[in-house]
């Protein structure tokens, strides 16, 4: 019966970046991190997706939730920030980028299901991290998000300290991602890290076998 043939499950399931994302600020910049798994139901449809998306030279966002919604918001804000920065004649502030994301997330909160963490560096305030969950806008020393974040709340609460260096922040991000990826079925693959400071924006990939190991591994 042709009506009953539905094909493979991943063609009909919603594509989600069930995920783990994290961003942390340090004195002079920010570090963002994400896993790379995109799932449709029980299938992994992309195991190497980079969920750290540039909004501007020194402002990135981390995507989680529905892959389509998150990517669309990031593309729209990328465009809006280009216009805005041309209008003001200089690089935009991180808070402006976060506000643009928040405006879309809040106005369309019933239709969209994506959470973006916005982080970057600007001349005025240095490194900043903003969470935009459900349409709020709040600046935080660090933020975690995505389905894998539940498992690492305890770890980040225990390990975060004020005044960490850039290298300590990178280690913190990699450890957190690794722990979440090993417990959350919707997170996995490789770890993408972006480090932004006054001088540079550096993208890095850490492959699965180079991630740190913990007790039961």
């Amino acid at each position, binding site marked *: 019966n042709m009506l009953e043939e539905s094909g493979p499950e991943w063609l009909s399931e919603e594509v989600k970046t069930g995920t783990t994302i994290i961003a942390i600020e340090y004195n002079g910049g920010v570090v963002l991190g994400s896993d790379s798994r995109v799932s449709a139901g029980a299938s992994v449809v992309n195991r190497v997706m980079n969920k750290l998306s540039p909004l501007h030279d020194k402002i990135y966002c981390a995507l989680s939730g529905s892959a389509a919604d998150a990517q669309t918001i990031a593309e729209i804000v990328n465009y809006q920030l280009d216009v805005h920065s041309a209008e003001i004649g200089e690089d935009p502030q991180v808070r402006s980028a976060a506000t643009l994301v928040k405006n879309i997330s809040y106005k369309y909160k019933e239709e969209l299901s994506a959470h973006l963490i916005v982080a970057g560096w600007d001349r005025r305030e240095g490194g900043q991290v903003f969470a935009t969950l459900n349409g709020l806008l709040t600046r935080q020393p660090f933020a975690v998000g995505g389905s894998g974040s*539940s*498992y*690492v*709340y*305890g*770890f*980040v*609460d*225990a*390990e*975060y*300290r*004020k005044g960490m260096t850039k290298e300590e922040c990178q280690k913190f991000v990699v*450890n*957190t991602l690794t*722990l*979440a990826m*090993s*417990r959350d079925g919707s997170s996995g693959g490789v770890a993408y890290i972006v480090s932004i400071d006054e001088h540079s924006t550096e993208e890095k990939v850490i492959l699965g076998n180079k991630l740190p190991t*913990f*007790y*039961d591994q």
Partner: protein
Amino acid sequence: MEKHYADSQTKGVSTGTTILAVTFDGGVIIGSDSRASIGGEYVSSKTINKLIQLHDQIFCCIAGSLADAQAITKAAKFHLSFHSVQMENPPLVMAAASVLKELCYKNKEELQAGFITAGWDRKKGPQVYVVSLGGMLISQPFTIAGSGSTFIYGYTDAKYKPNMTREECQQFAINALTLAMGRDNVSGGVVHLVVITEKGVEHVVVPGDKLPKFHDE
């Protein structure tokens, strides 16, 4: 292993909870928070003891429907005391866990409770067993359960080491429970610990103001 009910009508009082058990060099620590809630909105008890003594050196802690858990532990205590009279020896920890497992598995349709069993016996020393909702029984060096446990998977994965000293293990358990209570709104109150070794059993209660403080407090 835990089921957190948002509708208080269907299941009555449930221990949305955080429980754990950890072996160390020479013994085992079993611990829990102390909150019981109705529907996740009202704290019906701030100081409930979720650590039940099944025999001299065997304890268990309960997650899920309080009524089911109490009924099961009452039956298990009876079975175990009868068993130890027949054997003329204190029961093995595995025996206690098996009794719980039989009750949970045979009555899986009606019951909504899971258990962590921990204790010391002469044959195998300190042990931890998990009996999950449907009646699975496995042995682990340490385990966490309850609604609050999702938040500390990352922390416990990162921080557990085999063969810790008693002091290290106690601090590990207190830290883990505190972090979970800080993020889970149906876990809270004081930390109850029971330390079981060859020599006997010791209760430790850590009130709220003596719990460790983390970065945001």
